[in-house]
């Protein structure tokens, strides 16, 4: 383990030299009102450049990452992050561009954003795109607020947002954040939205149904056309959670399924790095009904091919973020789409679906498979059989760490007991998939032969099993200077 940087601090050291003012200096007290003159400097660490570099390099080595190993974390689409994209985002012309520079000085950036919007619209089958939201959940908020504005523009104050029980937690949290009442729709025995249960909730108070398709079980909602018809018939709109868009590129488009608004996770489907928990980017794409309500500013192009920003949109929901969104992520996503092209994007999804079905086929005798139909880009196993032998999904997940593999998403979706949600992505070779199969099968047999070995895992991680209960009961949320 690594000592905290604060405990390594040696008074008087520094990690970078800075320029002197170079102008006549005046006492701070003569420039800053007394109440705002700092009495005690912030307790920042004091270290040489080498010690700072060494500290964080050593910390980095305690992480599992895509570049060091397989990361089949369901619903997170942990695909490879191409290095040329990193290079592009760091180009001087992008990295050192200020959002308030005149359009004359930022035509390249505006063009990139405009074209990315067009491509995302084409990929999702929607009319217009705003790149502004900073992440998936932020895109959800943007989309749901647009739906609210739509209903209000028609003189309606609809209260309910319907969310399937298998939905990501962000869906109900978003609807509540936007001021709606959340109503849960049940899944049926096939893992799909129960159309029967949906019907029971449909009335003139329904503002929207939020749906992920394929859903979080990795299953395509086969009755999507009747679902969209039912919701639209009662005056509601359809929200598409794009977390699982990687499954369907060039195969089927949310717009063609009848969705009115889609958010797209550039950090999933379009390969921008996850960064240890962000930044993401969550552009929203909308159908004709919602175009007037998109956030401002919009990026437009005039007849001379000159790109410009348009903030004059009276029916817009306003701004969801300062400036234009996580531009650095747009550069990477743009490069990803350009590298693959139309044909490549189709292959991306086909290989993602093939990999998931392959893993499922090779594991279905060792674990319970709750749903039999072909899956899309991910699938869910249940560890119920192993749980009955005294080994939980949590323990098996931790045991996977000993094989150099990141555990799948666990205990989600909630509709499957002891769930393990596995998403290999298209960037993993068959050898990696086979290694994963071998590891999972070995763990399944260890549950029979040596359950303690599994229950005591991980054995080879930098640290042992972490006590998360104490962390929550007695929160220590920052370093404190020694007294």
């Amino acid at each position, binding site marked *: 383990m690594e000592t905290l940087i604060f405990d390594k601090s040696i008074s008087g050291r520094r990690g970078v030299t800075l320029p002197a003012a170079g102008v006549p200096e005046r006492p701070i007290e003569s420039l800053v009102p007394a109440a705002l003159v700092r009495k005690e400097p912030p307790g920042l660490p004091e270290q040489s450049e080498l010690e700072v570099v060494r500290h964080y390099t050593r910390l980095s080595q305690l*992480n599992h990452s895509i570049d060091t190993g397989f990361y089949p974390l369901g619903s997170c689409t942990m695909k490879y992050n191409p290095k040329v994209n990193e290079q592009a985002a760091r180009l001087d*012309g992008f990295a050192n561009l200020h959002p308030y520079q005149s359009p004359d000085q930022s035509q390249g950036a505006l063009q990139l954003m405009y074209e990315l919007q067009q491509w995302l619209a084409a990929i999702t089958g929607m009319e217009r795109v705003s790149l502004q939201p900073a992440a998936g959940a932020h895109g959800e908020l943007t989309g749901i607020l647009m739906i609210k504005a739509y209903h209000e523009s028609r003189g309606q104050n609809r209260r309910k947002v319907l969310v399937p029980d298998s939905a990501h937690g962000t869906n109900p949290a978003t609807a509540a954040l936007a001021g709606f009442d959340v109503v849960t729709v049940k899944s049926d025995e096939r893992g799909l939205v129960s159309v029967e249960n949906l019907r029971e909730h449909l009335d003139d108070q329904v503002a929207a149904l939020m749906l992920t398709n394929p859903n979080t079980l990795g299953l395509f909602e086969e009755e999507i056309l009747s679902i969209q018809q039912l919701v639209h018939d009662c005056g509601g709109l359809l929200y598409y959670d794009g977390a699982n868009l990687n499954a369907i590129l060039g195969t089927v488009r949310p717009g063609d399924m009848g969705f009115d608004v889609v958010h797209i996770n550039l950090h999933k489907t379009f390969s921008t790095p996850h960064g240890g928990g962000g930044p993401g980017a969550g552009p929203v794409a909308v159908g004709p009904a919602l175009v007037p309500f998109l956030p401002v500013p919009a990026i437009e192009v005039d007849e001379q091919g000159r790109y410009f920003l348009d903030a004059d949109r009276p029916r817009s929901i306003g701004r969801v973020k*300062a400036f234009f969104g996580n531009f650095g992520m747009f550069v990477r996503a743009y490069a990803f789409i350009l590298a693959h092209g139309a044909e490549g994007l189709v292959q991306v999804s086909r290989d993602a*679906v093939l990999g998931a079905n392959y893993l499922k086929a090779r594991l279905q005798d060792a674990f319970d498979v709750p749903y039999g139909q072909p899956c899309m880009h991910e699938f869910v196993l249940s560890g119920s059989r192993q749980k009955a032998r005294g080994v939980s999904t949590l323990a098996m997940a931790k045991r996977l760490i000993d094989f150099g593999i990141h555990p799948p998403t666990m205990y989600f979706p909630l509709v499957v007991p002891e769930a393990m949600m596995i998403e290999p992505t298209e960037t993993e070779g068959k050898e990696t998939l086979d290694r994963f199969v071998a590891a999972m099968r070995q763990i399944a047999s260890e549950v029979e032969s040596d359950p303690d070995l599994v229950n005591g895992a991980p054995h080879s991680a930098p640290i042992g*099993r972490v006590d998360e209960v104490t962390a929550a009961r007695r929160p220590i949320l920052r370093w404190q200077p020694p007294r």
Partner: protein
Amino acid sequence: MPFNYLPLTDPQRREMLGAIGAGSMEDLLITIPRELRAGKLDVPSGRSEWEVQQHLAGLAARNRPLSQQRSFLGAGVSLRYRPAAVDHVASRSEFFTAYTPYQPEISQGTLQAIFEFQTLVCELTGMDVSNASMYDGSTATGEAALMCVRATRRRKVLVSGTLHPEYAQVVRTYAWGPGIEIVTVPQRDGGIDLAALDALLTGDVAGLIVQVPSAFGGLEPVDEVATRVKAAGALLAVVADPISLGLLEAPGRYGADICVGDGQALGNAMSFGGPHVGFMACKEPLLRQLPGRICGQTADSRGNTCYTLTLQTREQHIRREKAASNICTNQALNALFATLYLGLVGKEGLREVANVSLQRAHFLAERISQVPGFAPAFGIAFFNEFVVKTERPAEEIVRALEARGIVAGFPLSRWFPDLAHHLLVSVTEANSPDDLDAYVEALRSNHLAKVAV
């Protein structure tokens, strides 16, 4: 055409289909209704890595970044020196190709870095607890408004008229959904109007959001503001510039209950407005209302000190519609940039960055005020940004100086149409004394040239 990120070969694909018992890829797509199948996507054809690189370099070359000009443009984003080690270390794959540290046993690097980030934010702001990051300063401000409402159960939030207008717009968007009332406290002479604040601070006010230094660069009368807000039983949320906190009092010391801000200046590239990082911290009694990820210290089964995400019962993946916010992915990597930056500049370095900015800004402000046609717009004290009253419309001056390779600042008319003769000028350690001279000289000659015409 082969795709370099797709490792499966056709024979492998066939072998895998065989293992599945599928005749073709189509057999795996049977659950998608035929009539829904998409045609060819209207996006360009795939390109080689070299072509991608060339194409993007071409687009980048159509921009004129601030690094190639003398820039006095700030207004929420600033060109500051980014120590070389920041990007170098944060670019390690182990950091940037990992995700949210759900598995603490193999994520201690990210977790400890977050714990250090939280500590740094607390040290800067004088707050008790910090979260792991927010999207940016504007959305952190939006969340602060909602937090005031949750904590007080009152439904109205006051926003200073000197708050960055884009932040204020985001606050309004966030408040609109749940029907929270947002009222602007007018500005007076570049600062918050205290008399107006008195009148607006009624018993139904959940909190006040004030920015220090403000969007005009002004150093608000924080003592007077805090006393009034406390007396009304409301919460004080301060939007702070983290660099300024090297010299300016910690908001927690003058009565702020919540402190938010943007950490772009801490080692993050401007990147045309994002990704940057929002920080959000509060006093201990408000902890359960704090949105977003929080990292805590604990121990592993062998008794080692280690770190883990904690207090997750506030969050969407546990609480669903009852969560404090819907935020999931945040800006962890940008928070790491900030952590590295603060680690490198250290205690003395941050003070120096703040001081160089402060001194050069005041030097420049005085020099500009000696140029005919330019005068200080407001009497309020400022930090490293100030507003200049211009005889000609500020937008014209910006355009004229652009031709000389100088980005003169931000014309406030873009935010406030009635402030057409107001130019917001920003100075950092990345503006050399030579830049300051060139700027003043350009203003002077530009003014004279116009007068001569």
